[in-house]
């Protein structure tokens, strides 16, 4: 019942034995040891599982691992150093840190991945556009204010 698939994750070819029903979020976490992508709900609502597939933000809990074969997957672990000038933190990661855009940090990888997609396609979003883009990402700690501020800071930092 299991099939061997090859996934390109953060620029590296990774193979995994997966059942057809296996969800990408679980394969990333359990088989590829990339636990930065989080699972926060059973309903595809929370967005803690957000990754990029071919540069677009998707909820990996709603993607079958086999669907992702042949596509470029980027997780939060693959974001460091991209768009931030060489190694080190991505400007979004730096901004979340400086603007106190996180408390427990559980939603943060998903927030950052969604924001990275937003800024890649809309470099100077309005506050309303930021909040709209984040509608699929839930946070129980911050009240979203500093998350929005972090994304604004990252957009302005360019």
């Amino acid at each position, binding site marked *: 019942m299991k099939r061997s698939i090859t996934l390109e994750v953060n620029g590296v070819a990774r193979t995994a034995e*997966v*059942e057809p*029903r*296996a*969800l990408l979020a*679980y*394969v990333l*976490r*359990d088989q590829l*040891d*990339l*636990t*930065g*992508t*989080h*699972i926060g709900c*059973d309903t595809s609502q929370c967005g803690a599982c957000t990754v990029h597939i071919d540069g677009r933000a998707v909820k990996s809990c709603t993607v079958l*691992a086999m669907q992702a074969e042949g596509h470029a997957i980027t*997780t*939060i*672990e693959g*974001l*460091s150093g991209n768009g931030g000038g060489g190694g080190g*933190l991505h400007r979004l*990661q730096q901004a*979340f*840190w*400086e603007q*106190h855009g*996180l408390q427990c*940090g*559980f939603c*943060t*990888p998903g927030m*950052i991945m969604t924001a990275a997609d937003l800024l890649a396609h809309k470099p100077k979003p309005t506050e309303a556009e930021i909040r709209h883009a984040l509608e699929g990402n839930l946070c129980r700690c911050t009240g979203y204010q500093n998350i929005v501020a972090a994304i604004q800071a990252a957009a302005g930092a360019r």
Partner: protein
Amino acid sequence: MATLFGSGIKRREDPRLITGKATYTDDVKLPGLLYAAVLRSTYAHAKLRKVDVAKAKQATGVVAVYTGADVKDKVNTVPCAWNVPNCDPRRTPLSPSTKSATWATGSPWSWPSRAPRRGMRST
């Protein structure tokens, strides 16, 4: 020292949180790790007559199933008390027992422990 007050201080825990390197409970991986799920009441007020776990014990990957009878005298009850002024504070503790009535949706019925799930989360 005077410049410290009111200045922005970056948190020390953030670097691992913003890079996905932190270890949350579900990120822990140990050899032989089992996963437990609590089966809770779906009725707001009901009498629990019987718990039959024979089928659950035989399900694939299940290592153990514990009911109230199994943990009686080994587990303390969970006190449920909310002191609302001028109200009768019901203090019936939540108990994993086949003998007590369940007061509220969410009271635990049983705990199956199973081997690592294969890509699907049990509820």
